[in-house]
Structure formats: structure tokens, C-alpha cells
């Protein structure tokens, strides 16, 4: 066996791996959008004056946080049809990752809300600002500096966890690398290649995060 990597094999399987990378990016972007939006809604609902609403939100977060993402994906993909929910692998992956991530984003945003002194909210109420205006003009602008770093972190976690989608046959990066490994019986080339691709993807997200953080900390 010669030492060193089989560059011909890498060249041959390049397109497959890049196609997997594209699926990973697509899935993660969509799942992140769901996770951030649903997470924000949950965090706002957590501030509700109704105990039942708060209890529902807390229950959702607690349950999701105690389940491995793989179990959630299995429930949706293999268990779904029993609840007349038949979806293809990729939508299951997007929804699973999205609603899974939402629980974590809910906690990040909740911490952000708690960091705003309640007196500022009372002053806003006394000059007649509506709850929506208070959220948009008083709370969110001050929260941005606090929530961007942990949010970027959570997106990175989401990207890494997307590798698990390979187990429910979504043709993302890890799945395609596994396919390459099965076909060539090589293990080093495929997994080293995707390690580098994951690293590049996550490095790009980190850089974007730093850029956003600087823009948001102008106060």
C-alpha cells in the first residue's frame, strides 16, 4: 500500500461530495431559519401573562432538550406514517433539525430578554408603547449584542449535527462520504475530505458571525 492519498479517487468522487455539501448547506440554512423563528416565538410566548402558555413552552423545551436528535428524526421518519405523516427524508431532516434547534434558540433568546432590566419595560408601558413596539424598539435592539455569539454557536452545532441526517438516508455530506467509502473500501480519503469540507463550512459561518457581531455592537 502506498502512503499518501488517492487523488484520482478524490477527483472521481469530488462531484458526489460537493453535491452532498450542497444538500448539507441547503438543509442547514432552512433548519436554522425554522429554529431561529420558532425559537423567538417560543421565547416571546414564555413572557406571556398566562401560566398555561408558559407551561406549554417550558414543556416543549424540556422534552426536546432531553431527546437526542437521532431519536427525533427516527420518530418523524419511521414513526411518522403511524400518525399519517409521510414525508421524504430531506423534509424530515429539515423539520427535525429545525424544531430541535428551536428549543435551544428559545433558551438563548429567553436569556437575552431576561438581561433587559424590567424597569425599562415599565417606562415604555407608561409612555404608552404597545407590547409589539416594546419588543421591536426596546428589547430586541439591546439583546442583539448578547444573543449573536451564542446563536452563531448554535448554528455551528446544528451544522455538525446535520451529519446524523445520513442515518435517515438524506443525501448530505456524511451520507455521500459513507457511500464513497462503501464503494471504494477506502476510509481515509472520504472522511478526511468531508472533515475539510465541514471545517471550511463552519469556518465561513464563524467569520459571518464575527461580522454580524461587529455590526450589531455599534451602541
Amino acid at each position, binding site marked *: 500500500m502506498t502512503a499518501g492519498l488517492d487523488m484520482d479517487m478524490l477527483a472521481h468522487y469530488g462531484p458526489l461530495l460537493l453535491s452532498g455539501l450542497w444538500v448539507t448547506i441547503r438543509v442547514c440554512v432552512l433548519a436554522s431559519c425554522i429554529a431561529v423563528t420558532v425559537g423567538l416565538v417560543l421565547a416571546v410566548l414564555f413572557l406571556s401573562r398566562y401560566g398555561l402558555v408558559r407551561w406549554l413552552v417550558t414543556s416543549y423545551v424540556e422534552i426536546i432538550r432531553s431527546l437526542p436528535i437521532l431519536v427525533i428524526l427516527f420518530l418523524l421518519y419511521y414513526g411518522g406514517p403511524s400518525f399519517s405523516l409521510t414525508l421524504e427524508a430531506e423534509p424530515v431532516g429539515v423539520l427535525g433539525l429545525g424544531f430541535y434547534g428551536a428549543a435551544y434558540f428559545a433558551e438563548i433568546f429567553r436569556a437575552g430578554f431576561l438581561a433587559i*432590566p424590567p*424597569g*425599562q419595560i*415599565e*417606562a*415604555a*408601558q*407608561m*409612555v*404608552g*408603547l*404597545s*407590547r409589539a*413596539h416594546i419588543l421591536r*424598539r*426596546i428589547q430586541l*435592539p*439591546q439583546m442583539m449584542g448578547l444573543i449573536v455569539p451564542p446563536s452563531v454557536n448554535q448554528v455551528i452545532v446544528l451544522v455538525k449535527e446535520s451529519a446524523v441526517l445520513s442515518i435517515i438516508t438524506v443525501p448530505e455530506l456524511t451520507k455521500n462520504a459513507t457511500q464513497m467509502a462503501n464503494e471504494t473500501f477506502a476510509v481515509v480519503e472520504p472522511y478526511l475530505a468531508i472533515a475539510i469540507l465541514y471545517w471550511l463550512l463552519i469556518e465561513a459561518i464563524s467569520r459571518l458571525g464575527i461580522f454580524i457581531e461587529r455590526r450589531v455592537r455599534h*451602541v
Partner: protein
Amino acid sequence: MHPIVVRDLVKRFGGVEVLRGISLDVGQSEVLCVIGPSGSGKSTLLRSIAFLEVYDEGDVLIEGRLLGYREKGGKRILANEREINDVRSSLGMVFQHFNLWPHMTALGNVTEALRVSRNVKRDEAEEIGTAMLRKVGLESFAGQYPARLSGGQKQRVAIARALAIKPRVMLFDEPTSALDPELVGEVLAVMRDLAAEGMTMVVVTHEMGFAAHVAQRVIFMDKGRIVEEGAPRELFSSPRSERLQQFLNTWRERSI
């Protein structure tokens, strides 16, 4: 019609009754000071009048309208946000810890309510805002952020912010308690001018000098009840209740 009418107000936190049946009227252009030891419920009373605390029993009427609740088929239910803001719009409030919004300038703080919820155009809002800042002596600080202001300046901006929506009653919750002694005077001066202009004011304070010289009426509270009330001159020179005498003695001892 009285600007504020409070009838048999009861407020509980958990099992503890913090307000045990408070009744009072505040007249047009009256300056009413509320004094008392900590834990007496004076801040809770003010906050209940503003409906920042949900009171449990009794009535708070602002210009004759019930605040915080709605009568529906003989039963009382919690009013919604719009109704509360509507009744509350004739109130302005100033807080002990200023509660300015740190990500906006002084002018931004003052004009925010005008621009956002009263739909006043930016130029007009800034004109009104600048006039309010001028009124409290801070026109040249319009572009400063709160972090750069002293405590007294922050509180004066807070007063300007409350005045911008043209309230008919101003509530002050220990407005100078968080200030260094040298900065108290500038805030009291603004409050004195407001009173002279005929603003109806309810002030929870430890500043006996202000109460003595500016208030028409002083209320002494202890353990959730009004123990004594009357003109400041009488209350301070000849207190009837032992509790008030004790309270004034501790104040006198600290002032010598």
C-alpha cells in the same frame, strides 16, 4: 372630577397583604406626597395607581375611568393592553432608577413614544422633544447617550420623556432616592417648577423638605394603611400618631 380616585384598594403578594384598603382622592393641580417607612406599601400604592401592579380589590379611577379592569355582565375582568394604555394615557411616571433606554440618545428617549405610538412625524417630534429637554434644562444634551449623563441629568431626561406625552397627572416613585446628594437639588427644582405650573402630582419621597414646601397634602403610610394625612405643616409639626412621631424622629436625628 378628580384626576385620581382610589377606593378600598387591596393588593396582595402571595399571602401577604401589602395594601390593606387604601382610599384617597387627588384633586386637580394638587401635589400629594406619600411618606412612610420602607415596606409601608407606598411604592406599591403608586405602582397600583399606574397599574404596573395588578391590584386585587378596590378601584383605581383615572379621570373617572376604571383602570386595569373592565365590567362585563356584573363581573370584573382584566382589561386588555389597549384599554389599559387608553385609560393610563393621562398618567406620566418617573422611576427611582430612571429607566432610560440606553441604546437611544436623550432626544431619542424623549421622542420615542411620540414617534412610535402617537404617529407624530420626526420633525415635529424632535421639536416637542427639544422643548421638553429645554424645560428640564438639558437642551444641549439632546444627542448624548444616557451612559454619559449624571444621575441628576438622567432623571431630568426621564421627566422630559414622561412630559412629552402631555400627561395630566405625574407620578414620581422616589425620584431622588438613587441620586448623590448634590444632584438631588436639580431634580427637585424641576419638580417644583412643574408643581408651580399646576401639574397634578403624586410623589413618593423621603425628601421631607420637598414635602414640606411644595406639597398641599401629605399622606403617611405604615404597614399597608394610611395612618395620617393632612397639610404638611400640621403633619410635621404636630403629628398625632405615635408611629408618625417615631418616623419623624428618626429623620430628624439623621438631619442634625
